[in-house]
């Protein structure tokens, strides 16, 4: 479904990504882990059209989407829930969710909205509330809901676990499993190694702009390098 080949990107003269390749199969959950500053968000921005890559290619369902504008990429079915949630703070929860469906012309938006509210009942309670007044976990739910409203075929989650209380994390990971059961492919970019390996079947380890390791998460979990770099024991 998503094919990234030898992607290079950066800001001004400083190049950050150096020939990164990764792929996400249909209906699969893949994860990308790495220390902050390793280039994770830069990679996502290059995929989603916020940053023009300097080399390499990005393909989705066989179609080359390298360097296309972000609004086009969303309508192709690739949606990113950005790091730090970035909700429209002054707008209500309901309006935030509607914004997720900005590109859609179809009729099923009402049905999708109902599904999101079933997935996150707390959002339904707070739908008329301003998004800025929600707690950290609730904001994360709203951001995830907004992404789902775009009815993507590939959902990219950037640092979902950031600053979440454990119980909230469990709710969100369960939600991800439910979403995955609906057949949606997910690319999980994470710092929390445990959550990442729990959910994803394949994993990529990004270090300083390069894919250092990749493979099934079961293998990665036991890999000494991962343990050394990400736990330092």
């Amino acid at each position, binding site marked *: 479904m998503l094919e990234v080949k030898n992607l290079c990107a950066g800001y001004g003269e400083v190049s950050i990504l150096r020939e990164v390749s990764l792929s996400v199969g249909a209906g699969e959950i893949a994860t990308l882990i790495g220390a902050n500053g390793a280039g994770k968000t830069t990679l996502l921005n290059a995929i989603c*059209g916020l940053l023009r890559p300097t080399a390499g290619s990005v393909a989705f369902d066989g179609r080359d989407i390298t360097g296309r*504008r972000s609004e086009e990429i969303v309508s192709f079915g690739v949606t990113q829930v950005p790091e730090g949630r970035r909700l429209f*703070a*002054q707008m209500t929860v309901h309006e935030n969710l509607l*914004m997720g469906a900005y590109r859609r012309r179809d009729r099923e938006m009402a049905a999708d909205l109902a599904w999101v509210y079933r997935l996150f009942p707390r959002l339904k309670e707070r739908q008329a509330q301003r998004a800025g007044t929600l707690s950290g976990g609730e904001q994360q739910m709203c951001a995830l809901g907004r992404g789902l409203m775009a009815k993507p075929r590939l959902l990219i989650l950037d640092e979902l676990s950031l600053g979440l209380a454990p119980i909230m994390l469990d709710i969100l990971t369960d939600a991800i499993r439910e979403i995955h059961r609906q057949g949606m492919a997910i690319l999980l970019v994470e710092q929390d190694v445990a959550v990442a390996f729990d959910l994803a079947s394949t994993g990529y380890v990004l270090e300083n702009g390069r894919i250092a390791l990749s493979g099934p998460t079961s293998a990665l979990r036991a890999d000494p390098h991962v343990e050394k770099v990400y736990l330092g024991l």
Partner: protein
Amino acid sequence: MLSLQVLVNGLLLGGVYGIMALGMSLIWGVMRIVNVAHGALIMLGAYHAFFTFTLLGWDPFLSLPVTIGVFFVLGYAIQRFLLNRIVRAQLFLTLLITFGLGVVIENLARIAWSSDLRQVTPAYQGAHFELYGINIPHVRLGVFLSAAVLSLLFLLLIERTKLGRAIRATSQELRAAQLSGVPVGHIYAVTFGLGTALAGAAGALWGMLFPITPTMGGPLTLKSFAVDVLGGLGTMMGPLVGGLVLGVIESFTATYVGPTYPNLLSFGLLVLILVFRPAGILGPRGLSG
């Protein structure tokens, strides 16, 4: 009874101040651009109303929708082909380029239509009526009501429609808007178009109350600044509240202190508010950063 008359005069004028400042506040709120050419666009709006009135015989109030349409297209083009290129440049470059634009517009007008004073004088120019002893000229009331209706329509557009949501989303969280599929370049152009349409309408209304000259723009840009800062920069209701408040304050100062003092007050107020309460009356706290 005089103070009631002064209050009403202030409020009637405050309506135009509000609509004038609303255009600037919208452009500032969404793109963080201070549009120094705002006054020049208002001047163009006045001339547009004047020429549709004199050449085509249209009533200035009825020609408002046309003015709004024409100026929306003008604003959309200015942003799309000129300002979108520098929207992420440092601040004073955006200030400079809009200043350059203002000078170009002002001088084109001076060359095309000369500098002599023009005035939109519909048949009912002199008509007025009494209400509890207060003299209310038809034109001033018409201008106030048009400004009120326009503000209401504008607020509905921003608060209730999908386009309005996209504009608000872009102003609050640019990256998230892009990731939700909002074509940001287009939204910026629409926003500048709306801001220019409001400026054009304000110009048409202003032209019914005061003389029209190519150089009327400069002071109006500064007045819009003062109203926006007073009301709360970048908020929707701020400019309207600020306009009414400033209209009343100026009206009282002109009557009780002296005709030359209102400007001193409005600009002095502008500086004091910026320094001590930059958020203005309605704005959120801590906008000074």
